[in-house]
């Protein structure tokens, strides 16, 4: 098997994993009827938290857990504002992104010139050494496997459990769900926390696996791409993986394009993932206009207040 091919496949998985984490979290949030535009902010705070903990304690488990907690802390602010104080989802999410970018830059200023030990790919004795299959299936880092597991669990939760059904019902019609006695605010609060945890984890992946350094603003719009991925996946968990692989693929191919003799300025190639997002959103609508309307949670982004 071609060395370059394996290298590209591994590269794509590394580029896709943070997107999978952030998008699967936001997917649950949106399925509950909440639009959290703060993904980028939660991700970058997760990135700096994971990095700082890894730098001081050199313990990857602790670092990953800390970034999850950090993402959840920011999500708590969002949940309190939108669920208890009934603020506008869009404005609050944007404030969260700004706040997260600011906090991470403020905190991260002392970490700009250091590196940490990155999380390595696991090697399974016997399996990882197999030709072809070894490097292609059994040679990823543990967080990659975790991201696939998270998607599967979310799929199971949403489609196979009673609580998942209630969560979807709340996202589609919070007034009806409230009327039959479901705790709208509680479900949404927990969904938002899950979204924060996953975004934090996605951020940790950036600073602990992708590149073990801290750079201000290192998420570079991945939180926003994750939001687009949720729409791309038409709110279906497994399609998130497909979408993330496509986006990861574009960003990796863009790196290798010059190697293949494509003579285009780097700036134009870097535009590809963003342009691709738009093109995909459009073709999706052209292909199945009515279908995606049906899957979008009907109460997405609407403020819920039980007057009764």
């Amino acid at each position: 098997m071609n060395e370059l091919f394996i290298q590209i496949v591994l590269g794509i998985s590394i580029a896709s994993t943070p997107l999978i984490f952030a998008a699967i979290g936001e997917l649950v949030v949106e399925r509950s009827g909440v639009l959290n535009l703060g993904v980028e902010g939660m991700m970058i705070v997760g990135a700096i938290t994971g990095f700082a903990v890894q730098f001081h304690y050199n313990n990857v488990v602790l670092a990953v857990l800390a970034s999850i907690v950090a993402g959840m802390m920011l999500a708590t602010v969002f949940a309190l504002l939108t669920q208890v104080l009934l603020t506008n989802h869009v404005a609050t999410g944007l404030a969260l992104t700004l706040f997260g970018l600011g906090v991470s830059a403020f905190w991260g200023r002392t970490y700009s010139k250091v590196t940490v030990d990155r999380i390595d790919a696991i090697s399974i004795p016997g399996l990882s050494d197999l030709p072809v299959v070894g490097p292609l299936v059994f040679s990823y880092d543990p967080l990659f496997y975790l991201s696939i597991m998270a998607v599967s669990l979310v799929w199971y939760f949403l489609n196979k459990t009673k609580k998942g059904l209630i969560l979807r019902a709340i996202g589609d019609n919070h007034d009806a769900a409230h009327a039959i006695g479901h705790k709208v605010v509680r479900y949404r609060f927990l969904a938002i926390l899950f979204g924060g945890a996953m975004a934090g984890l996605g951020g940790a992946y950036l600073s602990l696996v992708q590149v073990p350094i801290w750079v201000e603003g290192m998420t570079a719009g991945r939180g926003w791409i994750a939001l687009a991925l949720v729409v791309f996946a038409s709110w279906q968990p497994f399609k998130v993986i497909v979408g993330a692989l496509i986006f990861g693929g574009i960003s990796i191919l863009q790196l290798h394009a010059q190697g293949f003799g494509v003579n285009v300025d780097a700036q134009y190639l870097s535009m590809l993932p963003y342009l691709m997002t738009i093109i995909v959103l459009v073709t999706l609508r052209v292909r199945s206009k009515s279908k995606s309307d049906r899957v979008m949670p009907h109460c997405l982004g609407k403020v819920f207040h039980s007057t009764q």
Partner: protein
Amino acid sequence: MIRLQTRTNNSNAMVFLSPILALTLTALSTFFIFFLAGVDGFGAFYVLFIEPLSTKYNFSEMLVKAAPLMMIALGLSVGFRAGVWNIGAEGQYTVGAIVGGAVGLYFYEVEGFWVLPLMSLAAIVGGMLYAGIAAFLRTKFQVNEILVTLMLTYVAILLLSAMVHGPLRDPDGFNFPESRLFHDSATLPIIWEGTRVHIGLALAVIFSFLTYFWIKKHISGVQINISGSAPRAAKFAGFDENKAVWTSLLISGGLAGLAGLLEAAGPVGQLVPHLPTGYGFTAIIVAFLARLNPLGIIFSSLLIALTYIGGENAQITYDLPSSITSIFQGMLLFYFLACDVMIRHKIIFSFSKNINHE
């Protein structure tokens, strides 16, 4: 438990009190952050909020920063009223600067009163077309304008970088990724001697009043307003939703484009890769702090501009990173949104499980 009870009438007192309360809470939180960072709170506070107002230089720089914020926020407020979320003003700002700047560079060393108006026109059209992409995709394919405008922002910033590395690079600039300096006819007139305050500030204030009267008095402005606050009513009244989308995206795109050119042909004086510094995003906060009121935007843009100057001063005096500004801005919006809840609701703290509903 915290419970919200809807008021029968909006509280007029809270309309005025909530911004003050939000500012106070933000100030206290900033103190706390300084405390954590080991900085003298009172000193830093003076540097952040008083010093910018105390010298001519700082005060004028505040006005320079307020101009683009005011202009972009005005356009955004129109869209937000209509429920159209243009989050990518930063991109339209950048495209405006590229297109308007390119016109200025094309007429390099050509003297004439028409050069600047032509550049401005090009910038407005550039910004409009760029935002128009989102309007087209939303009205034609129901594609979410938040994502489209945002993705296009990253594209625009990369395009600017490609331009100043390529076609628009200064031929005598030793390969630095910068354009030529705009010549005199392509540079904004200064309206306050000895400072960088340019005509853009006057334009922004005039636009604020125009937008105010348009929204309040003119039928198309009222339609925009209603299609956001009561979409169903707007539909029954026969207002065209697509028209509201187009109008608000074209206005916000045009104003953001103009703001980009004013920055390039004003304080910066050339096209540089770091021209987009986040005004397009900060303007969203400016618009919300003004509760989307065009006249309020004059004040909120000054307040946010103050935090920029204060942040820069804190960087010099206390070696604090300038990111303190975005922490501050994010918190201010959090508190402001939270406090504004009290205009329409009473907050009731109750500790018993059985609440008697009225």
